[in-house]
């Protein structure tokens, strides 16, 4: 059958049936779903995308619930399903769809989008154990900081204050990667002999950084108290 001649509604109906067959473990035909996805993503057909959303949202929700870190977020599964389908749309729209030749490959990417939606969320928010979120967390930003400072600008300042490359490596380990001294020894073999050595060096660089008036200003502090 020439799939080009089928309407979006017909394709969606057929794709929905094939997807149900797949879920039951029966033999299924992937062509209709592939064509529907092609029209939605490569072809930019929003009616096709809406059908894709309806057909695959249940599967995406199952993936969300099965993700080992979903329950750390405190968010609804529907939120991540929506995020995943949205990022899936942006990632594969237009010519990018041509990188995918078969339905299993596309669905694997959709599953990856579930993972990335959850992980990107967790990167920005510390994990919560309950659904209740404090006002401070809901506000999102930590008060008192100059929100305009970009991380790259801040890192440049750190490197200016710590010209020694080894000190920069240590600052990176502590501030960028949030590593403990024992982890820093492991992550950078040969640079520090022991966690104690890391702690001593760390005291020194923290002292340098804390005294910097520029960092103090960026942190919302006007001046350093006299000693």
């Amino acid at each position, binding site marked *: 059958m020439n799939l080009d001649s089928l309407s979006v509604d017909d394709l969606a109906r057929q794709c929905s049936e094939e997807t149900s067959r797949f879920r039951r473990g029966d033999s299924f035909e992937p062509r209709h779903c592939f064509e529907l996805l092609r029209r939605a993503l490569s072809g*930019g057909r929003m009616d096709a995308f*809406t059908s894709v959303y*309806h057909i695959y949202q*249940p599967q995406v929700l*199952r*993936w*969300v*619930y099965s*993700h*080992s870190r979903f329950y750390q977020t405190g*968010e*609804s*599964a*529907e*939120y991540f*399903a*929506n995020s995943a389908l*949205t*990022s899936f*749309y*942006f990632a594969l729209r237009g010519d990018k769809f041509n*990188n995918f030749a078969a339905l299993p490959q596309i669905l694997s*990417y959709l599953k*990856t*989008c*579930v*993972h*990335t*939606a959850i*992980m*990107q*969320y967790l*990167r920005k*928010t510390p994990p919560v154990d309950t659904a209740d*979120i404090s006002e401070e967390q809901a506000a999102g930003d*930590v008060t*008192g*900081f100059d929100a305009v*400072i970009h*991380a790259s600008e*801040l*890192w440049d300042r*750190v490197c200016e204050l710590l010209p020694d490359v080894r000190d920069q490596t240590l600052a990176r380990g502590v*501030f*960028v990667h*949030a590593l403990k001294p024992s982890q820093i020894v492991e992550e*950078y073999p040969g640079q520090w002999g022991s966690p104690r050595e890391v702690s001593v060096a760390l*005291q020194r660089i*923290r*002292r340098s*950084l*804390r005294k910097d008036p520029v*960092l103090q200003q*960026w*942190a*919302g502090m006007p001046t*350093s*108290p*006299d*000693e």
Partner: protein
Amino acid sequence: MECKLPPPLTEEQVSAFLDGEAEPAVRQHVIECAHCAARVAQARQVEKMMRQQLLRWDCPTAQQLGDYHLGLTGEEDNRRISAHLQHCAHCRAELADLRAFLSAPDPGDAPEPRPHSPPFGFSRLRDIVARLAPSPAPALALRGENAGPLVFEAGGVTVFIQLKTVNDVTLLEGQLAADDLTAWEGALVQLHQAHRLQAAAVVDELGGFRFEPFVKQASDLRIAAPGGEAIILQIPA
């Protein structure tokens, strides 16, 4: 201001206090001396700022790591990400999680939605719910049509929503206005009604989008920019 209980705390003692490893005498000093307590507070503020602003600032995004794992990144990105993975335990852990997740067998049926979870699915922390503002003056009429659109404002973006009836068909026209409209070009607009996605549209290069036909009922619009920002419009019935 001077230390009330000289000598003042050393920098090492300040660090120890911040790390929760200070001796009792140091802890007591901070309680009794406003000057040293202010030094501790200042040091905490600087370090907190650094930890929060710098945490994983130059890590590839989760999406980039996913693309890398699937072999979808270019040569230059491959090299950059591979080099990054040499020293980033966080990204290595994320990749390991991804591998395990992708290779896990198909899960069974999903549990029933939790009672408080909205079927539409927006985040209290991440999504910006737009505020419905008073209607603008007639001079701000949208694209030459009659005045009276709904005006929503959120995160520096203004969205005008207008319903029109043409040949007995109601349609919804939306128009975004923002300092950086290019960030919203190509944004995906989802129209949700009765807890279901009804239709989707894309913001054009002029910031416009439309839904035709549009059934007049309470609706949620989710406008997601390619860069990740999303705003929610709650349109009353």
